């Protein structure tokens, strides 16, 4: 049995090596997803603010000085009229307008609300720079941020990108391999050698596991070298989580291959299923932003358990014990999918 498995893994390896595009994909994916895409992230909000002061009050200089002192304000422009400033906002040249009152009252902030995340950033950092909320926080309550060391947004989304990488490789690789063997009738030949459905699946999953672990190492290395991401928790816990993730996502890929039967149909199905899983996985919109019904879909979404566990291990310092529930759910999803796949393969 072990000898057969060994030959099956060797066959998978040779199939990959003989397909240069797949080798290129495996090499390019970590570079693109954990190296290049995160370059689009930074922790500076980069807000451009317009200050409207028709009366040229002495307060203007004070306001501008406060805004200039903030690392999150990228540029400040002075306007004579609100209309002129709003025209600049219409043209996406500024994100916030501070309108000074002629009677010396509290200024009014006009924020570009067309992009809500950006609007929230603009309101938060403009108010913070104008009113010095750090001092105020100290008077009301002491605010402590846990796990926020280093570059917050970049680290958070870097972990997301690593999981995205594992999901693409873990799902695509077995899916393309199985569908190619089905289309070229190699699957039938293999089955006629006495290779059972279980053994065939085990060979595929083991090879997929090895590849995903190599991709994980590559992703972590690139993230470390290019963006300074370090693992706050136990790295073995992350590898354990990734192994459990492969069981579910790899089986999902095989299920898509068995359902699609041809490469074209598989790609259609993959696009449809994968986009939904990614968008509902809390990778980009947190669980706290979803209504309870939508949030409940996470229980059957392997990407959620992987990304949630990875955030915990990489950013919060979680150990193996903390991610055991995640591993359990991933294995359970994988087990259910395996049963479907074994049945599907026996019918082939």
């Amino acid at each position, binding site marked *: 049995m072990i000898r057969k498995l060994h030959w099956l893994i060797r066959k998978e390896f040779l199939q990959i090596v003989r397909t240069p595009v797949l080798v290129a994909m495996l090499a390019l994916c970590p570079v693109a997803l954990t190296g290049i895409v995160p370059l689009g992230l930074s922790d500076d909000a980069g807000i451009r603010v317009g200050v409207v002061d028709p009366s040229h009050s002495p307060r203007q200089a004070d306001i501008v000085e406060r805004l200039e002192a903030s690392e999150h304000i990228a540029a400040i422009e002075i306007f004579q009229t609100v209309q002129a400033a709003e025209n600049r906002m219409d043209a996406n040249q500024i*994100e916030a307008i501070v309108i000074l009152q002629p009677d010396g009252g509290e200024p009014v*902030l006009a924020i570009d609300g067309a992009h809500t995340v950006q609007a929230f950033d603009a309101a938060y950092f403009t108010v913070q720079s104008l009113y010095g909320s750090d001092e105020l926080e100290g008077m009301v309550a002491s605010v402590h941020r846990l796990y926020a060391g280093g570059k917050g947004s970049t680290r958070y989304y870097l972990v997301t990108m690593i999981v995205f990488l594992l999901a693409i490789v873990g799902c695509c690789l077995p899916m393309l391999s199985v569908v190619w063997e089905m289309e070229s009738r190699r699957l039938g030949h293999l089955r006629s050698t006495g290779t059972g459905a279980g053994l065939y699946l085990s060979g595929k999953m083991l090879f997929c596991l090895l590849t995903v672990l190599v991709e994980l190492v590559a992703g972590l290395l690139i993230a470390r070298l290019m963006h300074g991401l370090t693992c706050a928790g136990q790295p073995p816990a992350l590898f354990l989580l990734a192994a459990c993730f492969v069981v579910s996502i790899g089986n999902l890929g095989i299920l898509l291959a068995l359902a699609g039967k041809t490469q074209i149909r598989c790609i259609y199905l993959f696009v449809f299923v994968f986009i939904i899983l990614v968008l509902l996985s809390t990778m980009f919109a947190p669980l706290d932003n979803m209504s309870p019904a*939508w949030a409940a879909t996470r229980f059957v979404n392997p990407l959620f358990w992987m990304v949630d566990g990875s955030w915990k291990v990489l950013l919060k310092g979680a150990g193996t014990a*903390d991610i055991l529930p995640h591993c359990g759910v991933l294995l359970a999803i994988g087990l259910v999918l395996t049963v479907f796949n074994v049945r599907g393969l026996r019918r082939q």
Partner: protein
Amino acid sequence: MAGMIQRISAVVRKEVRHIFRDRISCLLLFLIPAFILILLGYALGFEVLHYNVKVCLPPGEAVGERLVERLDGQPKLHVVGRIDGPGDIAQAMLRDNTRAVVELSDDGSVDLWLDGSSPLLSMNGEVLLLPVVADFVADEYGISVEMAAPKIRYCYNPSLKREYSSLPGLALVAFMLVSCVLLAVSVNKEKTSGTFKLLRLTRLSSLELVMGKSLPYLLVAVLHTAMVLGVCYLFGVPVQGSLLLFIGLCLLYSLCCMALGLAAAAWFDRPLDLLIVCWLFIFIPNLMLSGFVFPLVTMEPSVRTVAEFLPGTAFLEAFRGIAYKATGMAENARPLLMLAGGFVVASVLALIGFTRRIPR
């Protein structure tokens, strides 16, 4: 000219039959955009709906109960449990979905512990919790703190509706998937099955063939544009600017995506190669760097320069401009020209690819 139209319409008829014959492609062409726009429009948002908080209170003090009541009374805050001491704070955030711990000491001082791993959520937590705690401290201990509260007016989206953020991005994804990826896969299917070579043996030129293949997808794009408009009204996000300009934008973006898909299909023969190109070089950059997930202003200048050339970025900029800011052609000239330029460049690449790689 009449002969050209006749030949193109024959290819169009063939393509329509192809689409309706394959149930899966037919379903996906209409199901994907509907699902993404309507259902995910409800599911996704960038506004916090429920923020889980745990409390750490001094034992046996009624003041702690009043703090819990005060926190639970807020619509977005949920007190999900209590912890015994500050030593349990990190574990509370590790084990479940706890985002913040409010610690009340014996001397009445309050400490807020926020999960800073997600900067956006910790900022939300601070904004949600600080005013409640300030009110509580003022009521309980008579320490009134002047909270700086400037008047904030959100232009174009006064109530900061979550759909304003997700809708343009979901439209971007839907158009990109159908007009680019599915068209590219369909053309590739013709290439791999040899139909394309057979068609090239007829009097059809590359241009006629490409136009014939693309026109049914353009009709599908018109349907999707109507769907986007319908979803805008369904979510209460009506188009503020010119409706004609908005429809023109959706169709121009769809044309640009189709040209990109055709160019990819022209130069790459195997489905696997095409899948990798479509995902790695077209879909993911447009999803991640277009300003849908991360605002453009937060990007490094070098990456931002690249991002500004993406069709997705131009589409989002013009979508927000026309639909939310009611701006016209002049203000949106740059993104519209970018899309038109992208369409021309990709079309030329596609035509060269088809002519060279599939000769008569």
